[in-house]
């Protein structure tokens, strides 16, 4: 066994051992290795699936920080595995950099700048049907600025009136204005500052990793979100893989379930092989299988068989499901090995004749 290929931590421990102890350690290490042909995927599926049945089904609990509601338990696990683009409640944990992390005032100032404020949050809007007017009243400075520009008025007043020809135009205008952002970061609904181990941390409901990472005073190294798709978009596929592992492990740990992290790592690896985050299921990994029979055995049977017939697909019978369907030994464990024939009996004659020449 080549000792250089061992993980560093194991090598270090080995260096401290001597004689028979060392021998036994290596032997046990070899025994613990996964052998070629082992059905790691099936074992992973069962190892995550069985504890999953023990999980509470409805746990929309308030986790970690008091006021934030995060889906936990099975719903959250399903969300991770299904690679949902927008989780039901995303949360960001924003750390401040070295310089500002103990500054409560700074944290609170930053937090107030984060929260997304729409025009409808600070204005009172109504449509005067009779006079065909949109009346907007506000006391907010930023809102006033925007409205001033829009209406072209110079006076510093709290009431703005927009006139339009038809009512439908007014309605359109109102809808547009209501969604206008006056300050903050898109997607961030609520903000909290909490003291966490000697430093101030900002928690937000709703998340927008890309914009937050570009802010000044934010620790760009530790700040994260629980929205895996946003992590994929801003930090890349490897970060998404790490996020999947972390989030899944967190859910399982919270429920007191002890699942070996290797199983979760395998799932995360499979979800990210193609360079983008794929769901497990018919839209993702299972639907992208090469074998027609395996896909048909899973979900949407008719669709796959029909398409296979139309396009003339060929099944090489390399996988497990397809071989079970046709009643052959499956290529797992000892079944991975195929029979190979040496040239010997067939080419012996020819070789002899060649030698004679």
């Amino acid at each position, binding site marked *: 066994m080549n000792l250089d290929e061992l993980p560093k931590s194991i090598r270090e421990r080995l260096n401290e051992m001597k004689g028979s102890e060392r021998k036994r350690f290596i032997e046990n290490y070899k025994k613990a290795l996964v052998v070629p042909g082992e059905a790691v995927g099936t074992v992973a599926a069962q190892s995550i699936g069985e504890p999953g049945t023990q999980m509470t089904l409805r746990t929309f609990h308030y986790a970690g920080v008091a006021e934030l509601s995060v889906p936990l338990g099975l719903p959250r696990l399903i969300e991770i595995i299904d690679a949902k683009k927008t989780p039901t409640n995303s949360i960001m944990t924003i750390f401040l950099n070295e310089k500002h992390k103990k500054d409560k005032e700074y944290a609170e100032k930053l937090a107030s700048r984060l929260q997304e404020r729409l025009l409808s949050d600070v204005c009172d809007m109504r449509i005067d049907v009779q006079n065909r007017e949109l009346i907007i009243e506000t006391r907010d400075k930023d809102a006033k600025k925007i409205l001033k520009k829009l209406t072209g008025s110079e006076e510093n007043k709290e009431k703005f009136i927009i006139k339009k020809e038809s009512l439908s135009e007014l309605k359109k205008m109102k809808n547009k204005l209501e969604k206008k952002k006056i300050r903050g970061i898109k997607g961030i609904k609520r903000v909290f500052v909490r003291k966490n181990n000697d430093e101030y941390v900002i928690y937000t409901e709703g998340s927008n990793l890309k914009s937050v990472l570009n802010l000044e005073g934010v620790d760009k190294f530790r700040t994260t979100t629980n929205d895996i798709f946003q992590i994929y978009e801003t930090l890349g596929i490897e*970060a998404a893989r790490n996020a999947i592992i972390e989030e899944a492990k967190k859910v399982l740990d919270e429920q007191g379930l002890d699942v070996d992290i290797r199983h979760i790592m395998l799932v995360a690896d499979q979800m990210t092989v193609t360079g983008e985050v794929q769901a497990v299921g018919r839209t993702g990994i299972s639907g992208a299988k090469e074998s027609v029979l395996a896909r048909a055995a899973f979900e949407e049977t008719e669709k796959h068989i029909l398409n296979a017939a139309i396009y003339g697909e060929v099944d090489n019978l390399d996988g497990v499901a397809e071989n079970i369907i046709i009643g052959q030994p499956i290529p797992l464990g000892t079944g991975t090995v195929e029979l190979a024939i040496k040239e010997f009996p067939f080419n012996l004659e020819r070789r002899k004749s060649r030698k004679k020449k």
Partner: protein
Amino acid sequence: MRHRLVPRHEVLSKEEAEKLLKFYNVTKNEIPRIKKTDPALKDMDVKVGDIIKITRESPTSGVAIYYRVVIEG
């Protein structure tokens, strides 16, 4: 960009890439992929077909090395 979640990405030289493919007896189509537009490759000069060596911190083995081939996208 440096972030807790992003492990180290490096481009393999041509010789190293060939050696790797030979060692595992695979073609470039058979190893995991990474998109050319991936944010983790932003500061690097990569071409489609390059192999990226990723040095992960693994909870089970300390350091784990992973390879991905750059694809269009």
